[in-house]
């Protein structure tokens, strides 16, 4: 059973999808219930991972499965090679945890074509889980692209007014990057084979990690990977798909997009781009850190001026993900662990924010800040929940947002990105500005719009959606060691490996300059 735990978890949603395809279209509630049950089952399947203490001490991949998948003579071989370590563990858990919540949030929101929506949601879950557990680059790519399709339809069919533009933009933006990555990954493979990596290992990243790729080549390959991931993150100049996609997507779509899909980009950096091309990563560090910091400030500034709540939250994601990138490129334990923790927290709190916006939208069918005001009076419970989530997003100590940001900043400060860290810290102020201003305009003041007077407070279902998220907001905030302890060994290992290579590269460079003429043969 545990031998195939990951596969079971990943492909169970597909089974669920098949079941759903055979249900009658009209059985709205039944379809939703089945989907919910499926996602909950997936969550329970994945639960033993979270309680496995092996991650506390070991940095290796666990629960690995290795099956030969596509094998063509001496041309190439792809394997179904999956496994998780401390880095992917929590992202997997986040996925399985967010999915039931997202599904539950659709209860009243999705009314047309429920069947299609649920099928797509389950397909999406498979894609996301698969991407997080893949240890074979090719397999990763397959899952990575697989995620695009359901999201495209979710935005396009169930989205808002401008959904077509948003959906197409989302799709093409992401695909352009990933196609370049495809070229790069094929190149890496052939390079590896020529360098003597056994052909049978396929696109196994564990093997690729061992390789020494010449510096110049690394630069190009890293650029391709980094570009692809940067779009997904999204980093500063290539972020504009995100506000559109987030704003137009239905609530569940936004939640999944923000909570999980965006993490693909940052995860990609940690798992692929950096350890595969450590020297290039080092070269690119100032550049990417700069972009990350610009993203932090820029996202916050733009978020501040938004008049649409959802768009605001979307831009806040740009800002928050900038922190994650900064942490990752600090190249030290605090930075990267903080980055990963921040991925989780951002998943939780931004997911929650989108849910909240969704609640508002369901009630009023508008997302414009100006249409609200004074809701605290009408919806006190909602106000409390909203406040907590807002604070978590602001990064108040004691909530999840703080721990991640703190670790990132301290990591960046320690890791030689001091100026960036200072500027990024400034972003913390702006976060308070835009979030609280939004909160004020939506929740405080007098009820000016008569339509707002009789809004219902949160229902039990809605509260049930929010409570687990709030629980985690505090859990991560108060006792993050639950999460940190299990990711630290892997992160430490990653850093050791990356740093080691970087140092060797630097030494070699020095040696090269002096000893070139001594060595004659290649």
């Amino acid at each position, binding site marked *: 059973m545990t031998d195939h735990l990951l596969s079971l978890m990943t492909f169970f949603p597909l089974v669920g999808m098949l079941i759903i395809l055979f249900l009658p279209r009209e059985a709205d509630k039944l379809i939703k219930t089945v989907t919910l049950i499926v996602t909950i089952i997936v969550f329970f399947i994945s639960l033993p991972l979270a309680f496995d203490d092996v991650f506390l001490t070991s940095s290796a991949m666990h629960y690995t499965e290795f099956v030969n998948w596509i094998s063509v003579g001496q041309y190439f071989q792809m394997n179904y090679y999956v496994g998780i370590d401390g880095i992917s563990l929590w992202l997997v858990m986040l996925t399985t945890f967010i999915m039931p919540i997202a599904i539950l949030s659709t209860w009243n929101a999705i009314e047309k074509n429920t069947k299609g929506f649920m099928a797509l949601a389950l397909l999406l879950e498979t894609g996301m889980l698969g991407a997080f557990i893949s240890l074979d680059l090719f397999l990763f790519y397959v899952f990575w692209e697989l995620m695009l399709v359901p999201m495209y339809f979710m935005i396009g069919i169930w989205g808002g007014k401008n959904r077509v533009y948003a959906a197409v*933009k989302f799709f093409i*933006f992401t695909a352009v990057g990933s196609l370049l990555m495809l070229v790069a990954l094929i190149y890496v493979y052939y390079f590896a084979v020529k360098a003597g990596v056994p052909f049978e290992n396929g696109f196994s990243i564990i093997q690729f990690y061992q390789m020494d790729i010449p510096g110049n080549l690394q630069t190009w390959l890293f650029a391709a990977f980094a570009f692809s991931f940067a779009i997904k993150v999204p980093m500063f*100049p*290539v*972020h*504009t798909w995100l*506000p559109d996609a987030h704003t137009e997507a239905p609530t569940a779509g936004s939640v999944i997009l923000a909570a999980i899909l965006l993490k693909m980009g940052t995860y990609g950096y940690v798992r692929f781009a950096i350890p595969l091309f450590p020297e290039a990563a080092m070269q690119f560090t100032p550049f990417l850190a700069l972009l990350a910091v610009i993203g932090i400030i*820029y996202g916050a*500034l*733009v*978020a*501040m*001026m*938004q008049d649409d709540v959802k768009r605001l939250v979307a831009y806040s994601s740009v800002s928050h993900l900038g922190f994650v990138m900064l942490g990752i490129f600090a190249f*030290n*334990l*605090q930075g990267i*662990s*903080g980055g990963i923790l921040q991925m989780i927290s951002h998943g939780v709190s931004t997911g929650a924010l989108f849910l909240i916006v969704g609640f508002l939208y369901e009630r009023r069918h508008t997302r414009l800040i100006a249409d609200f005001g*004074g809701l*605290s*009076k009408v919806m*006190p419970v909602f106000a409390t929940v909203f*406040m907590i989530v807002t*604070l978590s997003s602001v990064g*108040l*100590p*004691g909530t999840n947002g*703080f*721990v991640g940001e*703190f*670790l990132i*900043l*301290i990591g960046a*400060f*320690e890791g030689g990105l*001091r100026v960036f*860290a*200072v500027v990024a*810290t*400034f972003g*913390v*102020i*702006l976060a*308070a*500005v835009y979030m*609280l*201003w939004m909160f*004020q305009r939506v*929740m*405080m*003041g*007098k009820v000016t719009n008569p339509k707002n007077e009789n809004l219902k407070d949160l229902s039990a279902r809605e509260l049930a959606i929010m409570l687990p998220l709030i629980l985690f907001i505090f859990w991560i905030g108060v*006792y*993050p*060691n639950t999460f*940190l*302890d299990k990711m*630290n060994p892997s992160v*430490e290992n990653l850093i050791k490996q990356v740093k080691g290579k970087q140092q060797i590269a630097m030494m070699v460079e020095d040696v090269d300059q002096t000893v070139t003429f001594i060595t004659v043969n290649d």
Partner: protein
Amino acid sequence: MYDKLWLIPFFPLLGCIINGLLGKRFIKNEKIIGAIGTGAVFLSFLVSCKYFFQLLGDSVKTHENIVASWITVGNLQIDWGFLFDPLSAIMLLVVTGVGSLIHLYSIGYMHGEEGFYRYFSYLNLFIFSMLMLVLGNNLLVMFVGWEGVGLCSYLLIGYYFEKKSAGDAAKKAFVMNRVGDFGFLLGLFVIFWTLGGKHGVWTLNFVEISENAHLLSGDMILGLGVTTVATLCFFLGATGKSAQLPLYTWLPDAMEGPTPVSALIHAATMVTAGVYMIGRMNVLFAMSPTTMAVIAMVGALTAIFAASIGFAQNDIKRVLAYSTVSQLGFMFVAMGVGAFTAGIFHLMTHAFFKACLFLGSGSVIHAMHHAMHKAHLDDDPQDMRNMGGLRKKMPITWATFGISCLAISGLPFFSGFFSKDEILWWAFASSRGSLLVWAIVVVAACMTAFYMFRCLIMTFHGEQKTNSKAKDYIHESPWTITVPLIVLAFLATVGGLVGIPHVIGKLIGDIPNKFEHFLAPVFEHSQQLYKIEAHGTASTEVSLMVLSVLIACVGIGVAYFMYKKNPELPAKFTSKFPKFHRFIYNKWYVDELYDSLFINSTKNLGTFCWKGFDVKVVDGIVNGVAKAVGGLSSVLRHTQTGLFQNYALTMVLGTVVMVAIFILN
């Protein structure tokens, strides 16, 4: 021994959770809610007292108690740990003591308010955060409290969230505090990085930082000493939290909150966090004379600046607010000149009398509000121009308010006298002090006396200016309000006796300065190490003391003369210097300056980023590429004319070109 320290913050947290979760639906009864809230804080107070007395009898004065680990990442190890030493003990007593009084007061004051449970929940949460701030044994736990109190301040200022001004003020407070927190975090990073990265001491623990601070003496960053940079950053944090120049503007606005909140948070406890923080890290600060000088100067300027604004305000709470800012300036002067003990001492006495003042004003407002309500008027119940002659109607309030006024003015043997004089003396005589600072502070002290008595007189003396309809409804407040007033007034009177200066102590008969003695383990070390001491003859000290008393009297006298004897004088003065008055009345236009300088420019920048860069440049490029490809498509598409011969021609041309290229090569 000290392993139950966690109980201290635990009770308020529990109270907060109980009231917050159950208050609205299940408890409902105001009495029970109030009892839970007050009781929680009172329990904390009791526990604090127990430990305080335990500490008094203990030879070891520093105790740490680690509850659990918090963040463990590599060499960064942070615990949920508490530090109990004389400094935190005093703060604990102040916070829980004054806190429980104000809770008690609130039961009466907030009676009938919507969201009563919410209020108490917030208030308990505040106490919890404050206790975390005080008790934290490392910078990060302190930061939890630091931001936590900011949050509670935000929540409580925005308590009347239906008022737009309240929401604005709340947000302003939070953001300003955040600016300060920015500095705090930076300071933390600098310390952590230099101590750890350069000297291998990876820590954020106060005790360890203090022990290892000497390692930093030679380190430079940006051409400045590390300690200077770090402490300046920390001081930025302090200016935010403690409303010093240039980040003070939120505090007067914070008066939008309920008055007990102003008393507790914006007078007695939270705003003093900056002072406490400096005291907590006095070793670091002592290492940097530059920072100390900056602190002293900023404190002094704040003191006089805020006092000047206090001259012209008519809102009773605003006067008190500016007075708070000003008094905080005094404390910073103390910290800046190395009079750590004096600073903390003033912190404590200030907590007593300023809380008392606020609560007194609250009592007045309560009564006024009540009366206005009864009379169906909507005059501003906080405007002093509507008051006057309340002495008869509200004797207890008047008495306590008056005592506190005397205390704040620094009349002899009231608590404020001892603490303020200590500060003045150090400013004058300390190795880190300067004459300039001293002079400014003295003037500020004089101004304090003036505007406080102006306030007292306008409110309680003279003829009654309240609308006659409402007059009769004004009466003394209930016991939950008056009892705290009396207790606080008592403390404001005698609280200073724990820290009688040596000079006077000697004069009276060998009474030691117990307060200084008690805090010595915390401060003595750095003061000795970095040679911070006040030296001067006893006669100088005494003469200065007399001078300050005289000056206070001058202030009081002028106030009496202007407002009691010649009530028409201020109006004349106003009409004579209208510009000057308007300038002062409008708080030197600082808010407007900030608006145009920071807020609007940030907003403009945001709009530019969005409409200018995002929409025009980035999306412009993206859509432009799409359009370009589309345009190319339209062009290329028309090469497909549908005419056979065009197709054939293309083929032939393609062929001949290809053949030509091939055979010519």
